[in-house]
């Protein structure tokens, strides 16, 4: 127990109790990472080592066989390319539409705007899986199955993005600033692009990371919209590859590790933006 007389002093933090907490948290952190660590390590193991017990974390004789094999067997790099293009365009669209709609709904008050904002937020309650089938029928009727536009249709707007931008605009961008620019004769488009957008770097950064991850990890929609190997996204390609006739854990791990590493890396680089974005979702009320 901590010393009640010096509740927040530094010495208080390295008491036996404090260090015990460190040990627990360190162990939990390692356990959370362990499945991912094993996955990456298995990607470099030879078949006999894959069967060894206890499983090794650092391979004894690391091999590139699995990775080369899987790159040969599957168009994995092509899938990564597909996913990058898909996620990039989806992010661009979500950031653009959220910036515009969030700003307009936050800074202009036409009588019907609150209702529009209400409807946008209400649709965010409805899971994508609920309206996926009609959306699919339309994409199919338009002949857009197995195309990039068909994939994108599900990921062009994000209600939370509009909410995030609107929230930021109303609390952090003063009306006086916009009025001053208007008095100086600036057009509305110029004000938005030159004054507002540069001020929104924080929320737009968080949104970029959220939107990119959402598209990168999308599964059900790409699974139904793409039906041939050339148009698969990474997640779909990988999921179907692992249901195939391969029982080779080395190859499966190599493919999964190749898919995992970019998202894990991107996350570690963008951690702050991401945490800010996700934490923002919890502050809705």
């Amino acid at each position, binding site marked *: 127990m901590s010393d009640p007389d010096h509740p927040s002093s530094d010495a208080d933090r390295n008491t036996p109790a404090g260090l015990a907490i460190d040990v627990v948290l360190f162990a939990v952190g390692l356990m959370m990472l362990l*499945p991912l660590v094993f996955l990456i390590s*298995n990607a470099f193991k030879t078949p006999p080592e894959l069967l060894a017990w206890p*499983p090794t974390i650092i391979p004894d004789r690391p091999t590139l066989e699995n990775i080369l094999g899987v790159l040969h067997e599957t168009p994995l790099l092509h899938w990564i390319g597909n996913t990058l293009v898909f996620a990039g365009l989806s992010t661009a669209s979500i950031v653009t539409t959220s910036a515009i709609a969030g700003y307009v709904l936050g800074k202009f008050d036409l009588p019907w705007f609150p209702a529009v904002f209400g409807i946008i937020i209400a649709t965010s*309650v409805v899971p994508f899986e609920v309206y996926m089938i009609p959306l699919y029928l339309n994409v199919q009727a338009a002949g857009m199955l197995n195309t990039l536009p068909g994939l994108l249709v599900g990921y062009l*707007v994000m209600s939370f993005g509009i909410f995030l931008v609107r929230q930021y605009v109303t609390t952090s961008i003063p009306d006086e600033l916009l009025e001053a620019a208007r008095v100086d004769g600036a057009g509305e488009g110029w004000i938005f692009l030159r004054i507002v957008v540069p001020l929104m770097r924080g929320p737009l950064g968080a949104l970029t990371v959220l939107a990119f991850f959402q598209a990168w*990890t999308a599964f*059900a929609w790409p699974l139904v919209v793409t039906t041939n190997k050339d148009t698969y996204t990474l997640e779909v390609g*990988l999921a179907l590859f692992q*249901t195939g006739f391969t029982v080779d854990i080395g190859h499966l791990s190599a493919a999964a590790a190749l898919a995992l590493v970019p998202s894990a890396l991107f996350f570690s680089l963008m951690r702050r933006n991401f945490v800010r974005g996700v934490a923002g979702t919890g502050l809705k009320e």
Partner: protein
Amino acid sequence: MRSKPKWLFPVLALLPVLGLYACLRIYPIAETLRLSLFKWNIISRRKPFVGLDNFIELMSDPLFLEAIFNTTIVAFGVLVITIPVGLALAALINSRQGLRRSGFYETSIFLPHVVSLVPAAMAWKWIFDARLGPLNALIGWFGIPAQAWLFDPVLSIVCLIVLCSWQSIGYAVLIFLVGLKNVPEALYEAARLDGASSFQAFRYVAIPLLKPVMLYVSVITLISSYNIYAQAFVLASDVQGAPGHLVRVLVLDMLENSFRNYRVGYAAAEAVVLLAIVLVLTGAQFRLFRDRSRA
């Protein structure tokens, strides 16, 4: 330039976004509701209105009932693990806030929430693998016989709960940490002056204040678990490509009815049931919130 009407810019700027919402959200949601009342089969030309027949049929469809039962078990299983574990971890991390190592704790616990679902599920699939997986080897040390984790109907649901909890704990911890930071330091001080231990201060000061946050995280966790699909798809599909055992979850059953059995109207009725579940959960959250703020 200043003579342009004031509403021109906002309306013109908003129109394309509203157009996208109308086509990509509102229309398909309305269409789902409409289709659920029709016998709408991709292969037959006649698509008669059948009222609530689809819903009545669902109520006695063993596959649907299995799906909704499984999904409910998974959702509440994940909830029961995620909330207490997430809260405990957040409290521990919060007490070490500001130290360099707390960055490692946060990142390692949060990473499973963000990495791609399919590779993460494949990692767990290896862990659960009956012949090659480390889990069976581990329990073997304690004299417990090897289990066919992913082929036993009960155990495979346990596996799904473990995988989904592993993913959702990071989110819960993150939101709880935000909540804990908003607890005024003065309240802890007061509790300490009254002789409360750190644990008591947490139990009687922080927990009551965190109730709305806990409610929020619970609802988000339940809703996202009702939507699981990729995890079940990967974990329960047979590696050998044989018609393996599937953990039937709601979304899986819905997609199967729509794309394998071509029964679009019937699948839409399932989507409406999913929507109803989500709306009830969201409504319950709002209601509990309101009651609390009135009290």
